[in-house]
C-alpha cells in the first residue's frame, strides 16, 4: 500500500493501542533498569572473577542442550502428526502438548526421586543385581545432562505447537516439486519442510530458551549454576537488589541481541507461496506407522506419562483426594480464573499489536511489536519485582484521588483484587501469542490483504474473513501455551497475589518448600487436569481445513 494514503480509523486506533500495550510491557523493564542504575561497584569485579565464567558456561550448555532436545522432540513430532496419517495420530494430537502442564521444578523432583539411588528404578534393578552394582547403572539426574533432559522433555511442546502451525500451512507445491525431482521423504523434510518451518521453530526455540532462563527451582535443585541463579544469589545473599537488577538487564541485553541476530539470519529465508493448496497428509502403514507411534510416544511418555503416573501414585498412596481438601478446589478456581482472563487479554493484545504492524508497517508499530515481547525475557520473579513499583503507583494514585474527593481509602485495588497477577501474566506471556501470530501472519501473503482490499473489503472484514481463519492454528496454539503457562506460573503469582489467595502452583510450592513436594501431588494433578480440556478441545479445531483444491 502506498505510504501517502491516509490511515483509516481502525489503523490509527490499532497503532495507538499497540504503543500503549508496548508502554505497559516496558513499565516493569524500565523500573528494573532504574533499580540497576544505583551503584554496585564492588560487585562486578567479584562477579567477573568468580561467578560469570561458570554461570555463562552452565547457561550456554543448558540452553543449547535443552534447545536440541526440544527441537528433536518438538519438530520431529510436529512433522509426524502434521504431514502423516497413522493409527493413533488422533490420540497423539492431544497428548503431545501435555508435558507443558508439568512445571519444570516438579519434573526435576520426580526424576530425581525415581532415578536416584534408593528410588523406584534402583529398587527394581536390585531384583537382579547387588545394590552397589545397580547404583552404577543409574543415570545421574542431578547434573547438567540431567537438567538438559528433564527440562527439554517438558518444554518441547513450545516447539511442537509452533512448528505444527507451520508444517500445516506449508504449501504442497514445494514438497511435491521436491518429490517429483526424486528427493526422498527424509530429504524433503531436511531440505524443504525444515527450512520453511524455520521462523516457527525459531519462535518455539526462543520460548523454550526463555522458559529455561526463567527457571530457578529445577536448576538449583539439579546443581546447575545459571545466570538466573546468580541473579537470585546476588539479590538474596549479597543483599544487592541493584546488582541483581544489573545482572537482569545484562541478561536482557544478551537475549535481545540473540533475537536480533536470529531475525537478521531469517530475513533471507522467508518464503511464501502463491498457492494456498496445503500438503496432503501421507498415510503410513505397518513399520512406518509403528515408527511414527514410537517417535511421538517417547516424548509423551517421558515428558508427561511418567511424571503424571508418579503424581497419581503419590496422590493415592497419601490419600490426598480422599482426605478432602476444600482449599484445593478453591485454589484450582483461582488458578483457572487468573489463567482464563490473562489468556483472553494476552491473545487480544497480541493480535492488536501485530495487526497494527501488518496494517501500517512504520517504525512505531514495529517498535511496539518488538517491545511487546520483552516481558518474557525477564525471569518471572524479576518481572514481578519490576511490576511492584508501577502497579503500586497506580494504587497510590487511586488512593490520592479518593482522599482528594473526600472518599474513604479504597486500599490497594490492583494488588488486592488479583489484577496485578493477571497483569503480570499478560506481560510475561504476551510474547507467546505475538510470536505465534507473527509466524502465522508471515505465512499469509500480503497479496491476500491487498486483493481483499481491492474488492472493497474493509480492514476489519479482511481480518474476520481472510486472516483469522488462516491464523486459527496459530491462535489455538497460543491459547494452549498461554493458558497452561499461566496455570503453572509461580514466582510472580507468589509475590503479587492478594491476601488469602492461593493458586494450584503456589499450593504445590508450599509443600515443596517444606521438603515434601509429594504432598502437593494432588494440586499438580489438578494443573494437568485443568490443562487437558482446553488441549483436547482446541486440538479438535487445530487441523487446518484442507485446501480448496
Amino acid at each position, binding site marked *: 500500500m502506498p505510504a501517502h494514503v491516509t490511515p483509516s480509523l481502525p489503523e490509527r486506533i490499532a497503532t495507538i493501542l499497540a504503543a500503549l500495550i508496548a508502554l505497559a510491557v516496558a513499565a516493569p523493564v524500565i523500573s528494573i533498569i532504574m533499580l540497576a542504575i544505583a551503584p554496585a561497584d564492588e560487585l562486578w569485579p567479584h562477579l567477573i572473577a568468580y561467578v560469570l565464567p561458570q554461570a555463562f558456561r552452565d547457561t550456554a550448555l543448558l540452553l543449547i542442550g535443552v534447545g536440541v532436545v526440544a527441537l528433536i522432540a518438538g519438530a520431529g513430532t510436529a512433522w509426524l502428526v502434521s504431514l502423516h496419517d497413522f493409527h493413533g495420530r488422533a490420540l497423539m494430537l492431544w497428548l503431545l502438548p501435555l508435558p507443558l502442564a508439568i512445571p519444570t521444578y516438579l519434573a526435576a523432583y520426580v526424576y530425581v526421586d525415581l532415578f536416584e539411588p*534408593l528410588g523406584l528404578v534402583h529398587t527394581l534393578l536390585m531384583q537382579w543385581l547387588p545394590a552397589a552394582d545397580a547404583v552404577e547403572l543409574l543415570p545421574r539426574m542431578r547434573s547438567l545432562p540431567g537438567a538438559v533432559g528433564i527440562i527439554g522433555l517438558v518444554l518441547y511442546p513450545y516447539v511442537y505447537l509452533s512448528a505444527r502451525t507451520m508444517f500445516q500451512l506449508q504449501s504442497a507445491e514445494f514438497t511435491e516439486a521436491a518429490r517429483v525431482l526424486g528427493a526422498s521423504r527424509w530429504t524433503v523434510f531436511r531440505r524443504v519442510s525444515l527450512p520453511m518451518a524455520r521462523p516457527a521453530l525459531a519462535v518455539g526455540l526462543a520460548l523454550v530458551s526463555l522458559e529455561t532462563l526463567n527457571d530457578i527451582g529445577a536448576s538449583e535443585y539439579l546443581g546447575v*549454576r545459571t545466570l538466573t541463579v546468580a541473579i537470585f544469589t546476588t539479590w*538474596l545473599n549479597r543483599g544487592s537488589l541493584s546488582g541483581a537488577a544489573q545482572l537482569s538487564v545484562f541478561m536482557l541485553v544478551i537475549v535481545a541481541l540473540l533475537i536480533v541476530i536470529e531475525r537478521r539470519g531469517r530475513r533471507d529465508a522467508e518464503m511464501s507461496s502463491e498457492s494456498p493448496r496445503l500438503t496432503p497428509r501421507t498415510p503410513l502403514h505397518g513399520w512406518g506407522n509403528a515408527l511414527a507411534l514410537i517417535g511421538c510416544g517417547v516424548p509423551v511418555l517421558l515428558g508427561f506419562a511418567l511424571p503424571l503416573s508418579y503424581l497419581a501414585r503419590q496422590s493415592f498412596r497419601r490419600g490426598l483426594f480422599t482426605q478432602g481438601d476444600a482449599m484445593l478446589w478453591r485454589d484450582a478456581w483461582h488458578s483457572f480464573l487468573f489463567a482464563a482472563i490473562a489468556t483472553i487479554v494476552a491473545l487480544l493484545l497480541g493480535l492488536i499489536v501485530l495487526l497494527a504492524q501488518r496494517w501500517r508497517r512504520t517504525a512505531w508499530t514495529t517498535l511496539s511489536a518488538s517491545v511487546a515481547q520483552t516481558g518474557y525475557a525477564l525471569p518471572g*520473579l524479576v518481572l514481578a519485582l519490576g511490576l*511492584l513499583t508501577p502497579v503500586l503507583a497506580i494504587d497510590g494514585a487511586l488512593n490520592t484521588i479518593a482522599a482528594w474527593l473526600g472518599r474513604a481509602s479504597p486500599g490497594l485495588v490492583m494488588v488486592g483484587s488479583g489484577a496485578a497477577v493477571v497483569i503480570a501474566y499478560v506481560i510475561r506471556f504476551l510474547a507467546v501469542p505475538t510470536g505465534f501470530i507473527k509466524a502465522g501472519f508471515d505465512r499469509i501473503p500480503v497479496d491476500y490483504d491487498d486483493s481483499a482490499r481491492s474488492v472493497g473489503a474493509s480492514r476489519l472484514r479482511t481480518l474476520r474473513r481472510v486472516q483469522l481463519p488462516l491464523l486459527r492454528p496459530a491462535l489455538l496454539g497460543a491459547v494452549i501455551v498461554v493458558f497452561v503457562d499461566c496455570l503453572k506460573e509461580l514466582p510472580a503469582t507468589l509475590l503479587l497475589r492478594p491476601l*488469602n489467595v492461593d493458586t494450584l502452583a503456589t499450593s504445590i510450592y508450599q509443600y515443596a518448600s517444606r521438603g515434601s513436594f509429594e504432598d502437593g501431588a494432588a494440586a499438580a494433578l489438578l494443573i494437568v487436569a485443568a490443562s487437558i480440556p482446553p488441549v483436547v478441545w482446541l486440538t479438535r479445531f487445530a487441523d487446518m481445513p484442507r485446501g480448496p483444491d
Partner: protein
Amino acid sequence: MSPSRTLAASLFLLAATASAFAADEVNVYTYRETKLMQPLFDAFSKASGIKVNVISASSGLEQRIKAEGANSPADVLLTVDIGRIDDAVQAGISQPLKSDVLEKAVPAQYRDPAGHWAGISMRARVFYVSKERVKQDAITYDELADPKWKGKICIRSGQHIYNNALFAAYVAKHGEAKAEEWLKGLKANLAQKPSGGDRETARDVAAGKCDIGIGNTYYWALMNDKDADKKPWADATRVVLPTFVGGGTHVNLSGVLLTKHAPNKANGIKLIEWLAGDTAQQIYADANYEYPVKAGIAINPTIASFGKLNPDPLSIAQIAASRKAASALVDKVGFDN
C-alpha cells in the same frame, strides 16, 4: 451469562472478598508457608477472635511491603531465617516494638536490642551421619575441612540461605581468611557437586554416596515421623549435633516483626506476643519440629532424641553482618561448581 461476564463478576467478587477487611483482623506476610502456619493462626483466632489474613512467598516480601508504602495492609512479617529479617530491617519496613511479654519470653540473644524483630522458633543445622560407617559421636563444624572426610560429605548449594547463615557464622567467628581455608577444605571433601535439598543429603548418606550430610533438624524429624517413604533414609542415619570448636551448635531463627505502617497495629502486637506464648511455642515444637525460643516448653521427643542442644552464643546480628562475605567466599572457592 456470557463467559466473559461470569469472569468479570468473579474477579469483582475476588476483589470484594480480598478488600473487605473487618475491624478485628490482622494481615500477615510470611516466608513460612501458610499451610505450616495455619494451625497457629487458627489457634490464635480462636483465642483472640481476631481473623488472620495471610500471604506467603519465597522472596521479595520486603520489596512488596516497601512498594506498598503507607497503604500496605501488612501488619506482621514472618521469616524463616535471619537473612530475611536483616533485609527487612535494612529496607526500613519495620517499627520498633517495646513489649514486656517478648522480653520475658525471648532470650536477649534472639531479639533485636532496638525491638525491630524477635526470633520465635529455632532450628539447628546439623549432621545426618551414616549409622553404619560413622562411629564418631562428637563432630565439629571445623572438622568438616579435615582430609579424613575426603569424598564423604554431601551438602546442598553453598548459596542456600541455610548454608549461607552457617558459613556466615564461621566468618563471624574466625574471619574471612580462615573461613576461606575452611570452605576450601570442605569443598575438597565433598562427594559430589552441591545440589538437591536437605532431604536428598539424608538419602545420599543412606545410599552410601557419602557418610555425612548437612541439614536442618526438622527435615530429619519429618522423614522419621511423618513420611513412610522416607523413613528408611532416617533409619540409615543418625543426627549428630555438631559444635564449633569452643562454641555451640549453629541455629537459625524464624523471626517476626511489626511493619512500619501496620494498619492493625494493636492486633499485630497481640499476634506477635501470642506467638511467643506457651500455646504457640508448643505448636512450633510439636507440629513444626522446631526448638521453641521460650524456656520451659517441652521439645518434641524426636528432636529431643538428638541430645541436648547447646546453641552457639554468637549473636544473630553478628551472623547477619557476615552473610555477604560468606556468599562471596562460596563464589571465590567455587564451592558450587
